[in-house]
C-alpha cells in the first residue's frame, strides 16, 4: 500500500512536470511561426527578432521536455509493470504512433533552430511547419492513451486475464479521445500563450514599453484568448461525457452523495459524506448541466460500491472548481482585450490589465494541473477504468519513496537550471541586442578557443 502511494506520487509529480513542457511542445511552434510569418510578410524586424529568440527558448524547453518524457517511458515499466504486462498490447498502440511524431518534431526543430542564418527565409519558415502538425499529433497519441485508460475498449481477455485480441482502431478512437484530445491541445495553446504573454506583461510593468514587448505580449495573448472560449465549450462536453461514462468520477468532483434529480451545483467548499460544507449552492443547476433539465438523475457516491469510490473528494471538487473558475476568468480577460481592441485597435492601457495578464500564465498552468488531477485521481482506484486496479498494477520493488525523493531533488535542479538559463538568455538579449547567437544551447558552435567545460 505504501509502495502504491509512493508510486502514485512519483508518477503524478513527474507527469505534472512534463506536461508543462509538453504544452510548449504542442503550441510554441505555432506561436513562433505566427511571429515569423508576420515578420516576413510585413518586413517587421521586431516580429522576426521575437521568433528567433523564442525559437532559442524552445530549444531549451524541448530538451527538458525530451528528458522528462523519457523518464516517463521508463516509469511506466518501472512503477506499473503489471499494468504494462497485461495491457501494453492495447495501451501501447497509441504510444507507438507517438514515436513518429516526436521523431519528426525533434528533426524539424533542429532544422528550424539552426537554420536561421543559412536557409533562405521562406524555406526556413516552412521547415518549422511540420512541428505544428507533429505537436498536435504527439498530443493526440499520448492523450488518447490516457483516454483509453478512462474508457477502455477494443480488446478481449481470456480466462487468465491476458489480452488475446485487440482492435487497434477501437483502442485509438475510444469514447474519451474526442474530448480529452482537443481539451489538452487547447490547454497547450492556453498555457503557452498566457505564460509567454505574462513574461512580456511583467516586462512592460517594469517600464519596458517598447514595441518588442507590445508585440511579444499581443501575439501569444491573442492566440490564448481565442483558445479560451473553445476550451470552455470542450470542457463542458467533457463533463457531460464523464457524467455518462464515469459516474463515480463525476460524483466525486461534484460531490454528489445521493442519486436523484434536482441536484444542486456547489461552488467551492469541503466535500463530506453528508454533502458539501461551506459552498455556494445553486439549486438544480448540476442536474441541468448534465442533461439540460432539472429532472436529470445524477448518480451519487453512495450508490457506488465503497471500494470503487474515488478518494480525496474535496481535492477533486476544488480542482474541478479551480479549473472551471480559471477557465472563466481567462475567458473574461479575452473579452476585455477584444472589447478594447475593437474600439481602439489597442491593448488595454491600464496597469490592471497588465497585472491580470501577468498572472494569467500561472493561472493557466494551475488549471492544467487541476484538470489532470480531476482525470487521474477521479479515476482511482482504477488504473484502467473498471478493468484493473492501480493496486494490482504497482511494482513490488522497494525503495520507491527513496526514488521519489531523489527525483524531486533532481527535478528541482532541472527546473531551476532551465529557468536560470532562460533568464540569462533574456538578460543577454536585452543587454546586447541579437548579436550573440553563440550562447544558446543548440546555437552555433563556439569559435574555437572560447569553449570550455
Amino acid at each position, binding site marked *: 500500500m505504501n509502495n502504491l502511494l509512493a508510486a502514485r506520487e512519483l508518477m503524478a509529480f513527474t507527469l505534472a512536470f512534463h506536461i508543462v513542457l509538453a504544452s510548449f511542445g504542442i503550441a510554441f511552434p505555432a506561436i513562433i511561426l505566427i511571429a515569423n510569418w508576420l515578420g516576413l510578410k510585413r518586413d517587421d524586424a521586431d516580429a522576426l527578432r521575437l521568433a528567433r529568440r523564442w525559437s532559442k527558448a524552445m530549444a531549451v524547453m524541448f530538451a527538458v521536455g525530451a528528458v522528462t518524457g*523519457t*523518464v516517463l517511458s521508463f516509469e511506466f515499466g518501472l512503477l506499473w509493470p503489471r499494468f504494462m*504486462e497485461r495491457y501494453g498490447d492495447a495501451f501501447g498502440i497509441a504510444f507507438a504512433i507517438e514515436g513518429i511524431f516526436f521523431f519528426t518534431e525533434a528533426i524539424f526543430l533542429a532544422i528550424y533552430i539552426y537554420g536561421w542564418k*543559412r*536557409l533562405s527565409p521562406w524555406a526556413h519558415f516552412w521547415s518549422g511547419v511540420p512541428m505544428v502538425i507533429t505537436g498536435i499529433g504527439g498530443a493526440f497519441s499520448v492523450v488518447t492513451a490516457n483516454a483509453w485508460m478512462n474508457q477502455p475498449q477494443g480488446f478481449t481477455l481470456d480466462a487468465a486475464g491476458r489480452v488475446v485480441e485487440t482492435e487497434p482502431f477501437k483502442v485509438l478512437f475510444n469514447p474519451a479521445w474526442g474530448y480529452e484530445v482537443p481539451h489538452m491541445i487547447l490547454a497547450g495553446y492556453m498555457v503557452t500563450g498566457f505564460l509567454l504573454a505574462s513574461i512580456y506583461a511583467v516586462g512592460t510593468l517594469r517600464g519596458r514599453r517598447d514595441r518588442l514587448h507590445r508585440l511579444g505580449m499581443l501575439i501569444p495573448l491573442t492566440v490564448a484568448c481565442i483558445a479560451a472560449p473553445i476550451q470552455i465549450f470542450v470542457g463542458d462536453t467533457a463533463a457531460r461525457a464523464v457524467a455518462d461514462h464515469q459516474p463515480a468520477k463525476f460524483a466525486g468532483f461534484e460531490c454528489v452523495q445521493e442519486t436523484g434529480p434536482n441536484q444542486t451545483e456547489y461552488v467551492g467548499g469541503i466535500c463530506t459524506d453528508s454533502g458539501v460544507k461551506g459552498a455556494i449552492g445553486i439549486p438544480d443547476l448540476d442536474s441541468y448541466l448534465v442533461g439540460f433539465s432539472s429532472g436529470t438523475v445524477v448518480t451519487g457516491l453512495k450508490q457506488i460500491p465503497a471500494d470503487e469510490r474515488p478518494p480525496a473528494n474535496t481535492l477533486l471538487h476544488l480542482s474541478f472548481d479551480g479549473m472551471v473558475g480559471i477557465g472563466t476568468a481567462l475567458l473574461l480577460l479575452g473579452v476585455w482585450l477584444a472589447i478594447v481592441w475593437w474600439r481602439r485597435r489597442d491593448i488595454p492601457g491600464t496597469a490592471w490589465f497588465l497585472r491580470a495578464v501577468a498572472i494569467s500564465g500561472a493561472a493557466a498552468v494551475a488549471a492544467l494541473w487541476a484538470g489532470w488531477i480531476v482525470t487521474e485521481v477521479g479515476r482511482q482506484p482504477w488504473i484502467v477504468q473498471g478493468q484493473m486496479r492501480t493496486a494490482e498494477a504497482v511494482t513490488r*520493488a522497494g525503495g520507491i519513496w527513496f526514488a521519489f525523493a531523489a527525483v524531486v531533488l533532481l527535478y528541482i535542479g532541472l527546473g531551476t537550471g532551465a529557468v536560470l538559463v532562460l533568464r540569462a538568455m533574456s538578460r543577454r538579449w536585452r543587454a546586447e541586442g541579437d548579436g550573440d547567437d553563440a*550562447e544558446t*544551447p543548440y546555437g552555433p558552435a563556439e569559435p574555437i578557443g572560447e569553449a*570550455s*567545460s
Partner: protein
Amino acid sequence: MTKADVAAVILWIGATLYAVFGGADFGGGFWDLIAGGAERGERPRARIQRSLTPVWEANHVWLIFILVVLWTAFPDAFGAIMSTLYVPLALAALGIVLRGAGFAFRKSIRRLELRRAMGATFAISSVLTPFFMGTVVGAIAAGNVPADGNGDAFSTWIQPLPILTGALFVATGAYLAAVFLVADSRGAGDGEMEGYFARRALAAGLAAGALAVVGLVLLHSEARYAYDRLTAEGLPLVILSALCGLAALALLATGGRRGLRPLAVGAVVAVVWGWGVAQFPYLLPTSLKISQSAAPGPTLDSVLIVFLAAAVVVLPSLGLLYWLTQRQLLDE
C-alpha cells in the same frame, strides 16, 4: 517468419540504430570527459560539441522507439525486465536526465565554474548511462531475467557478464564516436584533430575488441545457450564483425580513411545482430520465447504499420537533417 518475429526484427532494427547513433552520442561525451584540463581539452571539446549539437535529440528518440515497441509488441517481456532490472534501468534514466540537462544548459551558462560543472555532468553521465544499459542487456543475454519478472534486484546484473557488457557498451560508443569525429575533423580540414581522434579510435577499437573476446569467454561459462548459438548459427556474424573491426583498425593505424566509417559501423551492427541470433527464438533466454510473449496479431500489425510509416516519414527527414548538417547549413 511469424508476425511476432517481424516485430522482433523491428525491435532489433531500433536497437541497432540506437547502438550506432546513440552509442556514438554517448561516446562523444566519453571523449569530452577524458579530454583533459580546460586548456588542453579545448579544441577536442569544441569539435565534439559541434558534431553532436544538431543531432543529439534525434539520436535519442531511438531509445523511446525501443521501449515503446517492446512494451507494445512484447508486454510480458517488458514487465519482466522492468520488474527485475529496475536498479540499473533507474540509474540509466537518471543518467539520461543529467546528460540532457548538462548538455542543454552548459553552453548558455556564463559563469565558468557552473559551466564546468554542467560539462562534467554531461560527460560523466555519458559514461554511466551506456554502462547501465549494457548491464541490462548483459543480464538479459545471460538469462538472468525470469519470465514472470520480479527477479533479484542486484544479483541479476552485478555479475561478470553484465558488467563486462556495460564496459563493452562504453568502449563501443567511444570507438564509434572517435571514428565519426575523425571524419568530421577531416571534413572541417582540421588535420590535428583528425590525428587526435584517429589515435583514440584505434585505442578504443582495441579495447572494444579485447572486451568482446573476454565477453565470449564469459558467455561460454555464464550463458551457454547464447554461446552455443553464437558459435553456430551466429558464427558468420561474429566473423563479419571481427573482419570489419580488424580492417577498420588497420585503416586507422595506416592513416587510411576511405571506408573507415562503414567498416566501424559494420563491426558494431554485426555484434548487435549476432546477439539477436544468439538469443533466438528467446526474448528472455531461456524462459520466454518471442512467440510466447507476443501481443495479439492486430497489435503486431499496428507496430509494423507504424514502423513502415516511420520509415516513410522519419527516414527522409532524418536524411535531410544529416545532409544539412554535413553541408554545414545548420551551423548558423
